[in-house]
């Protein structure tokens, strides 16, 4: 979850380092956590704050580019075409509004379901659903700006 939150906001090459920073900070602040129920939301908040700090201190916002290297590709296929397409799609996701891109990355990259995202981040189910729905709508529009080919017909099972 922490990885997904960070991936939505910082360059790929910085994500792993920042994941460790998040857990270091969480450890230092553990005594300030009130109630175990909010642990996920608390951890997500730390991740978002660190991502914001990263931008304040080191990189202008508009330089959120992907310098994807093989070190960061966990999947088996590292073929150039797929890698290029994946990077392009990731960029499209990261150009969406904050709430949509984070929720979509948790769903599409980290493989979490909507209920799991809600449970881990502390968001309501309704918020996660709306973020997924609208984020996906905007992502489809970005990836395929031609509306006629972007609206698949409902298939009969």
């Amino acid at each position, binding site marked *: 979850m*922490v*990885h*997904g939150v960070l991936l939505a906001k910082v360059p*790929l090459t910085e994500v*792993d380092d920042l*994941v*460790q920073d998040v*857990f*270091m900070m*969480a450890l230092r602040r*553990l005594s300030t956590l009130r109630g*175990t129920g909010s*642990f996920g939301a608390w951890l*997500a908040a730390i991740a978002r704050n660190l991502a914001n700090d990263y931008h304040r201190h080191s990189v202008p916002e508009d330089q959120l580019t992907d310098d994807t290297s093989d070190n*960061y*590709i*966990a*999947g088996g*296929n*590292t073929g150039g075409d*797929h*890698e290029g*397409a*994946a990077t392009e*799609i*990731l960029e499209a*996701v990261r150009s969406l509004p904050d*709430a949509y891109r984070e929720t979509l*990355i948790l*769903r*599409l*990259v*980290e*493989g*979490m*379901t*909507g*209920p*799991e*995202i*809600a*449970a881990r*981040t502390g*968001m*309501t*189910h*309704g*918020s996660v*659903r*709306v*973020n*997924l*729905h609208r984020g*996906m709508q905007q*992502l*489809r529009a970005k990836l395929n700006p031609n509306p006629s080919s972007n609206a*698949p017909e*409902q*298939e009969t*099972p």
Partner: protein
Amino acid sequence: MDTGNNQTENKPLARGDDYLWDGSGEPDPEIQRLEALLGRFQHKRPAPVFPAIAPDRRWAFIPGRMRLVPVLATTAAAVVAIAVVAFLVNGRKTVPVIVAGWDVSSVAGTPRIGPNVISEKETSRLGVGQILETDHQSRASLRSEDVGQIEVEASTRLRLLTMDTGLKRIALDRGTIHAYIWAVPGQFVVDTPSAVTVDLGCAYTLQVDDSGAGLVRTSLGWVGFKLNGHESFIPAGAACATKPRVGPGTPYFEDASTRFRAALARFDFEDSTPDQRASDLAIVLGESRKRDALTLWHLLTRVDEGQRVLVFDRLGKFAPPPAGVTKEGILHLDRPMLDLWWNELGFDDISVWRHWERSWAGASTPVREK
């Protein structure tokens, strides 16, 4: 992080969103393509353990342990420090993640939790909100020290809905599970598309086909099957089918005659004429044996008022109504009298079930979070 637009939060969304939401429903090819492409960026390293935040639930049942809280807290803090340092120093070494859920191991093939294949060598964890899926060659085994063990057959899809102290709930969307439950009766609940299954201290097999129809077969103890107001109790040796939009049928012992079972299936699920229903009921009553009192008792609440007296008479022949139970009361479906008579049949005390009903009034309907 929230959209902040609360007015739209509960607005019904398009049906195609089911797959996007929790992977259920008709898969969306475009989303599947995005998952496949973007999955390469997924985080593969384990997260550090926070045992003070997610304690092992076994401790919660032992009040005497409370005296050890200060000691445990100190120990937990030390473990946290060690775990995090270990994670930071050896990022790629395995550090188990403790979350409420079931331990899952692969029995055959390549079962998956979400997009992740379960390793043959290691135990994975099925957390709340996650989906376990087996293909036609895969099987898996789930185990929880507090609840029991579930064997998951091939071509099965289940979701973990809740893992609270008093209620463990999964949804079986399709496929077959064999459940061996040692949790307190009433605490383990399985949603199917057409009924809710409540463990009442037992071992049972539950099957759900692609249409959402289900069948439960109890091998030990008994199981409750419920949808809204429709309920069935299935003791060891008995089975009960359930159908979408109808709910649980009438339970029967599997050694009943073929004619008995066929007539009962038609009576429960076919859209028959009144004459056909009367004919099927006559076969069931005529073929019934002493132990089929199980079926007859359930039929009391499922037959027309005019037929009820026939069922009463037949059931009374096998198990006379006990003191406090009158014909008039049964014909008017007096609930306490029905329960008293059930307890005389020798299956189990129905008060366990009634207690569950009172405790989990909202749990008799399958969870739908869509």
